[in-house]
């Protein structure tokens, strides 16, 4: 281990001291820079792991629907905390209505985004102005909650009784309404808009006829006027009783409130009351997962383009591709090491003419781009019948790692003293004996370096693996991972987990052996 060079301790005068401070500052800056670089480099790892623990929805973004429809939320606001239907939380009700209308306003196709804010205010104003009206009307509906009142109106099954009760009550109510209308409508209510057309249903029963009149009055009063009078309240009250009479059951008070609110908002927005609030949750790409979905890892081991849960065939899954990659890489490493050691031995330890040229010949391999040999290697492999086998990848990988392996081995083998060779020879070892008994045991450090270099070449290699192997039976990990992003699967969480699983071994091996790896690189690079 090299000593730390303490340049800064060189105190040689004032000029040097100033530059010392400058150096201290630069040192701090460089530290900061290093930390930034560290963060940048750790980022993909962090991203991969968080990705693997998120749910599919969180990764893609999804439309989140509230559990309740808007109307149910308003109901809840009305009911408030006490659960007592009569104890109405008016403020929350008001807010709920305003919110609902704001949402509705946002969907108004005629408005540009800028005008939305203005429109929201407008609607809010309308609601506030008429809020007291609504409140009052609803208060009067409260009368319906009075059980006794309901009992008075006998809604028994007998139609005759009903008819009598209806007609009697209705006549009375209708008279009341007429009186109110006559006395107030003409005078006090300013007609702003046109009265809605009277629904013509002359061919229906008297009940319905009365209803249409009542509905007419109701609509006329509440959609045309901007002011509310006590009489309107009474009309409202009467109306509600009318409606109630016309039905064979007690009208759900909530339905009336809902109807009033709906009318407030307008026809196309009325439908929105029955739909839940939806919002589009943006995909969470970078943040931490909101919940840890560990099950993604389990599915990841099973996922693959060809995963069939019912099939007993365990092929074509991530785990399987992992094994294939392992087989291919291990075999390539073994072959490379053997071939490299043997060739290096021949070129460095044995004396013959032309061994230096042979070395240069092998070094040519460093400059040949691996992908350029695709078509011929494909032809060769196909003639040998080796396409879609393990050899299809092992042989090319070993061949392309050979040059560097020889380079590294030459460096390491040069360290072994020749005396050992001679000693072994004197002991009676032949060439092969020296090789296996002396050289190979001493080349263990090189094994690590060559092994790691070859491993890097093989494990993540994509192009050859895609083209030479088409059967899932022999597919390697990078191709499997690449195919995960094809058209057929959208399980992002397990994909992330699969990516993590694919990367984990390399990282573990690296971290565990980092000392050795770095030492190997240092030795190899220096000697190379």
């Amino acid at each position, binding site marked *: 281990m090299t000593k730390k060079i303490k340049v800064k301790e060189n105190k040689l005068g004032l000029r040097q001291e100033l530059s010392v401070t400058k150096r201290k500052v630069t040192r701090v800056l460089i530290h900061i820079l290093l930390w930034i670089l560290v963060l940048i480099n750790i980022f993909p790892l962090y991203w991969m792991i968080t990705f693997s623990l998120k749910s599919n929805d969180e990764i*893609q*973004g*999804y*439309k989140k629907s509230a559990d309740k429809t808007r109307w149910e939320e308003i109901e809840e606001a009305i009911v408030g905390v006490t659960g007592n239907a009569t104890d109405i939380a008016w403020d929350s009700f008001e807010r709920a209505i305003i919110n609902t209308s704001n949402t509705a306003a946002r*969907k108004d*196709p005629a408005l*540009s*985004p800028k005008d939305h804010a203005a429109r929201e205010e407008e609607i809010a104003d309308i609601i506030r102005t008429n809020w007291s009206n609504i409140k009052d009307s609803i208060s009067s509906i409260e009368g319906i909650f009075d059980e006794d009142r309901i009992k008075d109106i006998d809604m028994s099954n007998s139609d005759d009784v009903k008819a009598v009760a209806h007609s009697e009550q209705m006549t009375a109510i209708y008279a009341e309404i007429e009186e109110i209308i006559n006395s107030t409508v003409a005078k006090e209510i300013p007609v702003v808009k046109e009265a809605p057309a009277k629904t013509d249903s002359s061919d229906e029963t008297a009940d319905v006829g009365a209803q249409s009149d009542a509905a007419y009055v109701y609509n006329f009063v509440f959609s045309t006027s901007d002011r509310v009078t006590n009489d309107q309240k009474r009309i409202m009250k009467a109306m509600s009783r009318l409606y109630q009479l016309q039905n064979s059951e007690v009208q759900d008070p909530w339905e009336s409130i809902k109807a009033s609110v709906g009318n407030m908002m307008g026809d196309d927005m009325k439908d929105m009351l029955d739909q839940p609030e939806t919002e*589009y949750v943006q995909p969470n790409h970078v943040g931490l997962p909101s919940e840890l979905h560990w099950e993604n890892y389990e599915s990841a081991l099973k996922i*693959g*383009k*060809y*995963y*069939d849960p019912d*099939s007993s*065939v365990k092929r*074509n899954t991530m785990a399987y591709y992992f094994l294939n990659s392992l087989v291919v890489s291990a075999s390539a490493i073994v072959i490379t090491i053997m071939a490299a050691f043997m060739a290096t031995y021949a070129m460095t330890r044995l004396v013959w003419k032309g061994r230096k040229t042979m070395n240069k010949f092998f070094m040519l391999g460093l400059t040949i781009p691996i992908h350029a040999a695709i078509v011929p290697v494909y032809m060769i492999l*196909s003639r040998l019948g080796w*396409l*879609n086998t393990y050899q299809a990848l092992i042989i090319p990988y070993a061949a392309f790692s050979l040059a560097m392996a020889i380079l590294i081995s030459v460096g390491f083998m040069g360290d072994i003293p020749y005396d050992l060779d001679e000693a072994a020879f004197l002991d009676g070892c032949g060439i092969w004996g020296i090789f296996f008994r002396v050289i190979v045991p001493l080349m263990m450090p090189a094994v690590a370096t060559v092994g790691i270099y070859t491993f890097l070449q093989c494990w993540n290699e994509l192009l050859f693996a895609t*083209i030479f*192997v*088409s*059967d*899932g039976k022999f597919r390697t990990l990078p191709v499997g991972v690449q*195919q995960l992003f094809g*058209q*057929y*699967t*959208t399980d992002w969480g397990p994909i992330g987990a699969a990516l993590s699983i694919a990367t984990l071994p390399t990282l573990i091996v690296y971290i565990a052996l980092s000392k050795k790896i770095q030492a190997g690189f240092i030795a190899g690079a220096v000697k190379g």
Partner: protein
Amino acid sequence: MKKLVALVVAAIMLLSLTSVFAEAPKTITMWCIATESDANRPAYEAAIAEIEAQYNVKIEWEAFENQSYKTKIKAAMADASTLPDIFFTWAGAFCGDFAKAGNVYCLEDAYKAYADALPAVMLQNASYDVDGNGAKPYAVPLTMNIVTLFANMDLLKQAGWDAVPTTYDDLIACCDDLVAAGIIPFGCSGSETWCVTEYLEPIIEKTIGYEKLNKIFAGTESWDDADIATAVDTFQYMINKGYFDPDGLSLGNDQVKANFIAGKYAFYQNGSWNCGEVNDAEGNFQVALFPVMNAEKATYGQVIGGPSDSLAVAATAEDPAFVADVAFALGKAICHYGYLAGSGLPAWTPDYDTSAVKPLVAAVADIVANSEGMVLFGDTAMSADPANIYLDYVSKVYGCAIDGAGFVAGLTEALPVAE
């Protein structure tokens, strides 16, 4: 005693004679791309079981992944001993090359038994003139797909449209309304060139008519047509007017499709294989076709697509006539199960209960049944090299790097009329 022995021997001989008449099941080898997660897998499995029982054959079949299957089958063609009896193929030039090389058994005779169940037009894409005596069929279609215009009716309603526009002017008006309402009309993945062809080919077809386009793809007519240039310019006009999601330039198709299903676009034009997914998604979706651009040359009912997935019989098969018969029966069965499962549209006329089919799939099947002309997808109709040159030019179209005139001029020279 002797008599008894003789009787027993005679009985045994008789028994062995009868077993001779009970034939051992023949073995037929087959290759396909219906791997375990392919949508068609269940259809294949069911069909094969049915045919094995019906014909007393044993079908030894293997499935391979789509992209690598192409290389694999081409390699097998070179070494005919490894070719299976029945193999999956795409119609158009893919099979055509094999047929012209003499590796595929002609199905003209075997078809006769199935002529009512399979309309002749469905064999059009896999019919080739190999020996100069006219085009003959060489492959059995399975299910088919067409380019469909999916529409989100809720979004259209927001813009004030109740139905999908059927004329070009209406479409433009509808797009304008959508844009005014803040809705993006079309979603297209510009980074996947085949998705761009899903828009471009219908536009071209609706401008020049299906017969001309078929001839151009077949290489018998030149690309030099001013109408094609107009079609491309119209497409780019729509892009420049903002009718297409600008993000589409770098999005992939799966993202675009997910966006459409989530309600971001009003329209999405892509293959009918998406029907199942769209049908099951939340929302009110409908299917339609692209409107007519030039009423003199094209009609609304002309579609892009058609039978492509097919089964072919190797010329080296033992007893090819029998294998061809089995292939037809297999094709019919696969189509039957596939349609019911919603993995494609029926090329064979359904003679079974179709009520279980998903509504959107049935709607498209209806469109197909009433179609007035079909053009197979360009990248399937042409063989590898010209198809990819064509795709190269198309990819320039979406990014507006080349205009209609440039497109036509380039393709006229790059893909000249075959001699």
